[in-house]
Structures are given as C-alpha cells and as structure tokens.
C-alpha cells in the first residue's frame, strides 16, 4: 500500500482537521455509491478510506509515524456498497425510482415500449419471501403434524409438517410471504425446521435407535417386554441369553419414507437392581467361582 499521506494528498505534518478535510474532499468525489458505474472509483475509495482510517486515529497515526506499523494494517474490509444491492434488486423494490425517465414512456416508439414493459414488470413483481424458523418435537417430525407458527406481527400461520421431515429442511408456503408492492402475487413463507431431541429416541437416517433397559432376569431367561416406538409401545421378545449391546430390530417402526418405513433398532441395556440384593450376592458368590469367563480378555496389553 502507498504512503497514506500521499494518498490523501496531505503533508505528514497535517493537522487532524486538514486530514479530515482532505478525506472529505476525496470521498465526495470517489464514494462508490456516488459513482455506481466506476470500478476505479471504488478501488481508489478503498485506498483513501484505508488511509483515513489510519491517520484519523491518533494512536495509529503515532505508531505509523514511529514506524511501528505499516500502512497495510489500516485497510478496513468494507462490506458491499449499497450500489451492489441496487444493481441486483428485483423490479418493484421499495427504493425503485422511475421519475428520472418516466416521460420517455409517454412517447410511442420502441424505446417507450421498453420502458412501459419495465413499469408493468415492476407493478407485477412478486412480494418478497419471508423466512421463519420453527422448532418441532421429535415425534412430530417422525409422525407429521400441523403446527401453528406465531408471526412477529402477531398473526399466525398453520404449517403442515410432513411425516419424516429432517432437521434443516425448509418448507415453502406459497403466497404466505410479504405482499407485492404493486399488483403482483405475495411472496412465499420459507420455514426452516429444527427438531428438538427426544428423551430416548435418536434418529439415524430412516432408522430410530433406542436404548432399552432390561433386568438381569429378562436378559438371561428371555422375556417379552414393552418397547416404546414413535407410534406407541409394542411387545418385544427378548431372546434368552441376551446381553447389554444386543440389538433387536423392530421392522417398519422407524421413520416413514417413500414406499415404507425405516426400522427401530432396540439396543438392550442390562440393569442390576438399584439396591444391593443379598440373595443375588450370595448366588453370584457361589456361581462366579465356577466360571472362567473374562470379558476383558481382548483388552490385555
């Protein structure tokens, strides 16, 4: 970067007031929004405002004069200028102003037709889309639901949640956005869905995982237990000799998908009684002495 004093065209002894005046003079000429078609103005303005940013701050200016910092640190990254948005704005946006050439449209040559077409387009432009966020319960995401979204202006919007929706999906409600500024259709409401976690269900693709606690007796002897699914509890047969980590599949009890359902995968978790049990202890004391099973055998270094 060039010398900031040189960029602003001031002496290195210039007073803060002189620097401000020099900047103002240049900015009036070079501000990109006042020169919307000039790439060169934009580049020079960035340089000038960088130099001013450095020299208008007494601390930075002192450091620069003392050679402690160089001019490159002064370039402040500026977000886009208004002109960039104005250039992309759709027909019918609120700042549109046609009074600079509206009279051209009153004649009847080909150009007038062009301007008239532009005016018509502006009038018919759709209203803008409005974005909302809606967080729903896990089971509503799996089973589908209708949720009422309260809008910032106090109104409300009924949102139909299709079953099996995933977090981050965006629902488009046609015509529920902002009204057109002219005679066009209203924009759409775009609702981004987030899903609250469930107490015990988790979702992996179309399958639902759940950890199901079982007693020692249910696992060792086998049993029939009630297992929760998103559509209500069902009977689940725990085979004899099941263990912590045994996974049982409930076919079709997962998340709906086109042409069927995913599965629910039930992972068993053997739970000992919370209170010490004298009977169990004495049984295990006599039983354990007769076995040589070592579950940590694979973990020996």
């Amino acid at each position, binding site marked *: 970067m060039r010398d900031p004093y040189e960029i602003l065209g001031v002496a290195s002894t210039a007073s803060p007031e002189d620097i401000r005046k020099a*900047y*103002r003079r240049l*900015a*009036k000429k070079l*501000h990109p*929004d*006042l020169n*919307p*078609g000039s790439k060169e103005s934009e580049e020079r303005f960035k340089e000038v405002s960088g130099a001013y940013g450095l020299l208008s701050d007494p601390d930075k200016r002192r450091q620069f004069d003392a050679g402690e910092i160089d001019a490159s640190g002064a370039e402040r990254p500026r*977000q*886009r*200028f*208004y*002109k*960039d*948005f*104005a*250039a992309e*704005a759709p027909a019918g*946006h*609120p*700042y*549109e*102003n*046609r*009074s*600079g*050439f509206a009279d051209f449209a009153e004649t009847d040559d080909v*150009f007038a037709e*062009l*301007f008239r077409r*532009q005016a018509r387009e502006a009038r018919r432009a759709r209203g*803008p889309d*409005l*974005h909302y966020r809606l967080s729903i319960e896990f089971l509503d995401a799996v089973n589908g639901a209708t949720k009422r979204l309260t*809008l*910032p*202006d*106090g*109104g409300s919007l009924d949102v139909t949640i299709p079953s099996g929706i995933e977090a981050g999906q965006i629902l488009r409600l046609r015509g529920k956005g*902002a*009204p057109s500024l002219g005679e066009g259709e209203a924009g759409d409401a775009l609702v981004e869905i987030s899903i609250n976690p469930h107490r015990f269900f988790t979702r992996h693709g179309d399958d639902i995982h759940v950890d199901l606690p079982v007693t020692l007796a249910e696992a060792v002897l086998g049993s029939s237990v009630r297992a929760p699914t998103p559509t209500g509890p069902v009977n689940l047969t725990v085979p004899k000799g099941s263990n912590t980590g045994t996974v049982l599949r409930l076919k079709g009890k997962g998340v709906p998908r086109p042409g069927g359902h995913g599965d629910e995968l039930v992972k068993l978790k053997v739970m000992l009684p919370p209170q010490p049990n004298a009977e169990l202890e004495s049984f295990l004391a006599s039983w354990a002495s007769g076995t040589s099973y070592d579950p940590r055998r694979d973990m020996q270094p």
Partner: protein
Amino acid sequence: MIISKQDFLDRAQLDRETLEVWIEEEWLVPGGAGTEPAFSEADVARAQLIRDLMQDLGVNDEGVGVILNLLDQVHGLRKALADLLASVREQSVPPRAGSSSGQDRNRE
C-alpha cells in the same frame, strides 16, 4: 434473508430513535407486514451509505434526502439503460463472423 429490527440496529450501528427518524423520512423503507419491520442486506448497506454521507461527507439532513432521491433515480436509469442495451444487443446483427445471434442463424 430477513433481518430483525434488533439485528439491524446492531449491524448498522444505529440507535432506535435515529432509525425511527430515518424511516419517518423514508430514507429507509423496511419490508414486513404489521408492526414489526423486516430489513434486508440492502437496507444495511443503505444505512451505511447514509452514515457515510452524514459523518464522513458532512452532508446535512436535508441533503441526505436529496442525494438518496437522486441516487435512486440514477439506479432506476442504470437499470433502464441496462435493459435497453440488452434488448438492442438482442436485435442487432454484429457484422463480424462467428457470432451466434438470431439473424445470423437465419442466414445459414
């Protein structure tokens, strides 16, 4: 993307009273139905422009309104000119070979 009033105030570094005045003056025209205004990225950039005009360029309140009005006309004209150029380019026949305009194809 819609920006809420509070986010807008933070990003544009404005206080509530100033924003009320700017909206009153129609320097900013936020979207949004009902009582809660909805701002866009364009509004943030426009607020930055207004701040530049007032703080850096020393433009007074009356001047800002005049400048914005003329700027909006400039953008209207730029858009009209761009459309005009586009339609002229569509209809004109570039004299050089290798172009793909409609009339060139008709000649083949």
